[in-house]
């Protein structure tokens, strides 16, 4: 599987260039062929079986997040194929789609709709999310009135309320003050526990050692190592 991003500089993005190319029949064609391409992922092959807990490691820009986006179905591979069996929950950007002008409740509802849930199911979840986030009456206020900590709590509560076979995460999520953080950690762990596959991108080798049973190292969009992680020593 490979992923390439065409980078359109101003001149390449315009229609003029394309039209001129048409009319001059390929003379400027070389120029169009020179458009820069970033190969974000190259020759990536893997199979994650049920029960896999995969940690993605690599420098900034090594392709971890791009790989996660491919797995979540946002980017389709330019070469090769991706086959996914099961439902996916991606916790890439938890505050995704939080509308600052809408209330907390509306945001919960909208997010549920985007996840493809039906209204009845969402309503049954609203209480649970409200309980967990401990935001109480604030949920009736627009999200823009929240402190950043409160906003994160809501975002976290919403995005961890879904159940899925496959969970995709960019960095292990942690939110809130000491008390909430512990609660959040246990919620996340139970979510991950119920999922059959976890893929998490991280910079933290100790996290990989703690939760993962397989580790992929990426560099310049290639897998440079793919090895099992020894089960953590029982504490």
């Amino acid at each position, binding site marked *: 599987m490979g992923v390439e991003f065409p980078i359109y500089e101003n001149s390449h993005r315009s229609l003029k260039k*394309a039209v001129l190319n048409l009319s001059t029949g390929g003379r400027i064609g070389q120029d169009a062929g020179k458009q820069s391409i970033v190969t974000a992922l190259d020759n990536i092959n893997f199979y994650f079986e049920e029960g896999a807990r995969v940690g993605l490691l690599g420098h900034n820009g090594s392709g971890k997040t791009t790989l996660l986006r491919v797995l979540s179905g*946002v980017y389709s591979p330019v070469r090769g194929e991706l*086959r996914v*069996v099961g439902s*996916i929950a991606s916790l890439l950007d938890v505050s995704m789609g939080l509308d600052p002008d*809408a209330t907390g409740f509306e945001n919960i509802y909208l997010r549920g709709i*985007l*996840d493809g849930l*039906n209204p009845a199911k969402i309503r049954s979840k609203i209480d649970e999310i409200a309980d967990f986030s401990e935001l109480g009456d604030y949920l009736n206020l627009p999200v823009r009135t929240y402190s950043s900590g409160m906003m994160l709590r809501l975002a976290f509560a919403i995005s961890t309320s879904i159940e899925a076979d496959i969970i995709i995460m960019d960095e292990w999520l942690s939110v809130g003050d000491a008390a909430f953080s512990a609660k959040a950690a246990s919620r996340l762990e139970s979510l991950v526990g119920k999922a059959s596959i976890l893929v998490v991108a991280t910079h933290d080798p100790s996290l990989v050692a703690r939760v993962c049973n397989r580790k992929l190292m990426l560099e310049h969009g290639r897998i440079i190592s793919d090895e099992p992680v020894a089960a953590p020593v029982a504490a």
Partner: protein
Amino acid sequence: MNTLVTSDTHLSCDKNLANHNPSSDLLFGIGAYQVWGTLGWHDIKQRYRRSVLGPFWFTLSTLIMVVVLGLLYSQLLNQEISTYLPYLAVGLVVWQYLASAVNEGCAAFIGSAYLIKQIRLPLTVHVCRIAWRNFVILLHSLPVVILTLLVFGHWPTPEILLLPVALLILWLQGVWIGVALGILCARFRDIAPIVTNLVQVAFFFTPVMWSPEILKDRAWVADFNPLYHLIEIARGPIVGKPVLLVSWVWALGLLIVGFTFAQWLMNKYRNRVPYWL
């Protein structure tokens, strides 16, 4: 070259929206009425949050526009106001819908980039959301049209029964236009301003404020204008003109050609769109 998502439905998702491919995007997207319906309605609520009249501002501003322009142009064009005002009202309301469907269609994917890059949904959902939002605005403006009719004592004729069909066709036109322009504009950022200009110019070439009768032997300007026929399929039933078969044929023909084009673009470029944003 493909992303294949197969999912078992026993999980929380009733319909897995991620489970589409380029060729089924349009169908899945239009089918996800709960998603685009909610989002489109949310857009309307958002625009008029904290305002007293809310979406009825659409009604009021249409009313003002129709009355002022109606009085002015019925004088300028020497038209009988009792027939001119309803004529103008339908024209303006449908035109507003078509113009915003086209203009906002250009930004359909660019504007939803934050969602497209986060969550896998049929791209058509983002277009349907815009078409639906504009359609709701259209529905809020229609009472003005009915009002202009009643004020001058015109009562609806049986042709009014065709109105829902006309409205459905108009909504569907918004969908294919948005898909086609959305894809083209995501790739070529110059197309949006070009389209905006064309829409502005087209307004004067389309019989919205004037009726095609005054064209005399240049009537082909209207006859070959698909926008005119789109307005006409709604105008006919409302003002009680006998069914104009030509206009319906044009409207349906445009729908078929348009969706074929949109489907072709989807097949070819659906998977490229997220990379362009």
